[in-house]
Each structure stands twice: as structure tokens, then as C-alpha cells.
């Protein structure tokens, strides 16, 4: 059914989107929390910076990552000198691209989720002896659970479709960095319509699975009822 290259593309897509989400989610949580809860100055700047990957052409995001991760970039040169690691043109670079591009989407969803938690419950936790971090871990996150999960699924789905930033920073190497969208681009370039259609079906299936999981999770939370959403 699937050629081995296509199977590799599927595996890489899942791998890239998963790692991208895993890396992006804690950062998105931290940024989302700061944007909703803290009163520090410069929130507007942070807000704008986070939105950049959403509004800029992904190629630019990829170029930015290339500058950062390249042998002469600040992160790239450190990783190369200290550990001998080169990320550019690896699947990890593709994951970073996926994470960065989906970051604004995750941050927005998490902001909504955190803002939905009654701040008085967090104050109650503080008066019971919980410090700020423990309050986040035991009250804010459990109560914002559904929204955070939705944010992660959104990030994952966006990561699956990442193309522009990935091709710049990770290239299009079959079996190494060639995810489904890149494989499809290659098929279309080569005039392999059959391959392209198979990848379209594959993408559709992945999207359907993600949405179904989202739906099931949301429904299960719904069965537990969430009285705090209303009162």
C-alpha cells in the first residue's frame, strides 16, 4: 500500500510533530501563564514576539532557526563546540521548526484555558500553604487540563502540516527529514500523482484521528461535568 519512503515520511511526521509539541508545550504554558497572570511590564512585546510565527511566512521562521542553529549561530556553535552536535538538516531541527510554528497557536489556546480558572481558587490554595509553583501544578493546570490538551492537539496537528520552515532548516532528505508534506511536494515535482494522492489520503486520516481523539477527550471531560465552568 505505502511505499517504504512514504512509510518513512509517516513515521517522521509523527516523530517531528510529537517532539515539536513536547518541546513547545511547556514553553507555551509558561508564556500563556505570564500573559494571563503576571503584571510584568513588556507583556505587549512578549505577546507580539510569540505571534510572529503565526503571521510571518514560515520560510522566515525557518531562516531564523537556520541562523540560530547553524554552525555560526549562537545555539548551533555552542552545541557543536560543547557536544559535537549539529542539528541543522536533522529531524530534530524539523521538530524545532514544527514546535516554533505551532507555538503561537498553543499559547493562544492555553491563555484561554488559564483565564478560565477562577483566580480565587488559586488564592484559596495560597492561603492553604501552597507556593506559587505548587498552586500552578495542583490547581491551575488540573483545572485548565482540557484547554491545555486541546492546545497540545492543535500544536500537534499544525506540526504535522509544517512545510516552509522545515524545508529551510531541515531540508528534504528522504528517510531523515522528509515528512509527509515534503514527500508530497517531491511527488508533485516529479509528476507522481498517484503518490501525491496516497499522501493526501494519509494526511486526511491523520487529521481525522487527531480530531477524533480531541473529540473523545472533550466528551469524557464533559461526562464528569465541570461545575466550576459556570459558578
Amino acid at each position, binding site marked *: 500500500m505505502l511505499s517504504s519512503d512514504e512509510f518513512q515520511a509517516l513515521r517522521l511526521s509523527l516523530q517531528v510533530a510529537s517532539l515539536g509539541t513536547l518541546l513547545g508545550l511547556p514553553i507555551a504554558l509558561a508564556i500563556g501563564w505570564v500573559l494571563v497572570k503576571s503584571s510584568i511590564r513588556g507583556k505587549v512585546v512578549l505577546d507580539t514576539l510569540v505571534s510572529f510565527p503565526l503571521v510571518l511566512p514560515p520560510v522566515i521562521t525557518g531562516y531564523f532557526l537556520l541562523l540560530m542553529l547553524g554552525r555560526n549561530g549562537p545555539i548551533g556553535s555552542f552545541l557543536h563546540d560543547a557536544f559535537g552536535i549539529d542539528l541543522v538538516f536533522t529531524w530534530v531541527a524539523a521538530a524545532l521548526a514544527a514546535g516554533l510554528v505551532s507555538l503561537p497557536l498553543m499559547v493562544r489556546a492555553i491563555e484561554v484555558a488559564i483565564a478560565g480558572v477562577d483566580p*480565587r481558587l488559586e*488564592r*484559596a490554595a*495560597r492561603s492553604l500553604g*501552597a507556593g506559587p509553583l505548587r498552586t500552578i501544578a495542583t490547581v491551575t493546570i488540573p483545572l485548565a487540563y482540557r484547554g491545555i490538551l486541546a492546545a497540545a492537539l492543535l500544536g500537534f496537528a499544525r506540526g504535522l502540516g509544517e512545510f516552509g520552515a522545515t524545508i529551510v532548516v531541515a531540508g528534504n532528505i528522504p528517510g531523515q527529514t522528509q515528512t509527509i508534506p515534503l514527500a508530497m511536494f517531491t511527488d508533485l515535482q516529479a509528476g507522481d500523482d498517484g503518490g501525491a494522492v496516497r499522501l493526501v489520503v494519509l494526511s486526511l486520516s491523520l487529521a481525522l484521528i487527531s480530531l477524533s481523539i480531541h473529540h473523545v477527550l472533550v466528551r469524557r471531560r464533559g461526562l464528569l*461535568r465541570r461545575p466550576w465552568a459556570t459558578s
Partner: protein
Amino acid sequence: MGNVLNLRLRKSYPGFELAVSASFPSGIVAIFGPSGSGKTTLLNCVAGLVSPDEGEISLNGQTLFSAAKKLDLPPERRRIGYMFQDSLLFPHLTVKENIHYGYRLTPPQMRRINPSKLVELLELGPLMDRRPESLSAGERQRVVLARALATSPNLLLLDEPLASLHTGIKGRILRYLKAVDRELAIPMIYVSHSISEVLTLAHKVLILNRGRQVAYDEPRRALSQPAVIPAVDVESLENLFDVEVLEHRPSSGITLARLGETILALPHLGQETGKVISIAIRASDIILASAKPEKISARNILKARTEEIHSLGPRVLVQAHLDQPWLVEITPDALANLDLREGQDVYLVVKSSSITILD
């Protein structure tokens, strides 16, 4: 007994300034005042949820806040329990997990109150595995009280804990609060805008009006302040008592119950004898007579002595004493007609049907 809490603070918001300076002894101190008088702001300053602009707060000799020393302990390090107006139980945890939340965060050497003792005292046993959403308003307030007490706090703040409850449950929660005061001896600051609650519970009352401290005294003396009038005007005053059921007289349609040395005739009820129940009598439902009335249908004619007479605008509140203080509301006309003075023997006449059984 020394003072537990010393505070002197100022906190301004646009169009509002709170300025209070007071020392709180152990026992229950009420903070009374109309809404918008700064009661909750004062509690939040003590709890560490709001930072005052100026002043100092210390609890048992430990400074919690000092503007001069730039010290402001975060709430989690103040060891102060807070019972909020809306119960604010954690909806994702069971009753048991809610109660243990703060207990587990309390250093073992500071744990003076065992959760199992609270479960017993507040009769929470059957609720432990339930979720907050399935509890009634009264049950929720009991759980939130247990949750705050499980941290073995040095001070308990209560922000109108009965405001969201109907009268029947109020009496029960009041009884639990008295039990907490008696058994656990934790100093409490109790915010309320209900005179009956203040008189039932508090040893001292601080009266606030528009952020200013109007009076700070024993409840009976403090409540004679003119600033109290606006708050009293809207409230129907009730006397809340705990009585012990003595015997039933079904054929007479009454149940006898004891309040201290006084025997009261209540409407007939099915409670077993020996049980303690809460009752409420509205201050305006009590008739006051300067001589013993005879040939009268009311079943309760109680000899008492007037202690205080407060004229609150169009209402006169007479505080009479027999075992406990009773509030009787009469008109200024009746006051003049009876020529009532403080320290005079009077009779309180109460129909058994105007006694409400609260539980």
C-alpha cells in the same frame, strides 16, 4: 491574655481608603459594617492577598507585613486560615482531598489539628468521597471550614461564611463555629453584616463604615453606634438560640425545650428528647410587657431584665437578659408608652408559633 493580632494599616483604592488600627484578642472578633465598608479588604490584607500601602501587621509577635521594613510575607507563609464567602472548594478534588490539601502542606511539627478530629467535629464522615459539586451549600461551608482548620492555622478569617445560606442552615453552621471556638480555641475574625450573627458569636466587634473604624468594643456597646443604623435598617433581626428538647406534649401541640434555666414552649416537633436544636425568634415577633400579662394565649411569658435600649432611627432595639441576651424590637411610641428604662424588670411574650425550628 495578650493580643493575638496587632494591625495598623492604610490601603487606598481610587475613591476609597481603608484605615484601621486595632489589636485582636483570642476568641471571636467580628468585623461589622455595610457592604463597601472595607471588611473584605481588611481580611485580604491580614491574609496577605492584598498588600497595604502603609502600616504593620503582626500575628503572635511575628511581623507579617511592615511597610517600613519592606516586609510582606506571602499568604502561604502566614499560617492563617481563610474561609471565603463562596466556598471555593477545589472542584477537581474530593471532599477528603480538599481537606487534606492544606494538611499535607503543613510541616508535621506544626500539625496540631488532626483531620479526623475535624471530620468528627463537623460531621463530615459521610461526605468524604463526594465531589464539591454534589454538596449542598451548608455542607460545602462545613468542608471549607475543615479545609482551613486542617492547616492548624494561628488565626482563622471568615468572610461572611453564612451569607449564601438560608436561615435554617445558618443556625447549624453557627453551632459548628461555636464548637470550633470551644474545642480548638483558634482565634477567629468573622466578617458579617448581620447583627444577629455578631451577637451570637463575637466577643468583640470592630465596626467599619466607608473604610473608617467607627467603633471597636464589646458587641452590645459597639452596636449602639449611629453608624450601625444603615445596616440594621434593612435586616430583620433574629434571636438564634440552641435549646435542648425536654418533652413532647402532642395533645397540647407543643414541645418543651430548655434554654439555660428557661423552659420554652415550641411548636410540636418530632425531634427526640435530649437533642440540641437551633431555633430562631424574630426580634419583632416578641411582645414586651412591663407587667406580667394574664389570660393570654401566648405560651411563653418570660421574666427578663432590660439591659440596653438602642434607638436606631424608626426602630428601638431593647436588649433584655435572661440567661442570654434577647433582642426585642419595639417602636419609639411603645418605648415612650411603657416608660422603659435600662435595668427594669419586664416580661417577654412569645407565641410558640413564632419560634422557627432551624433543624
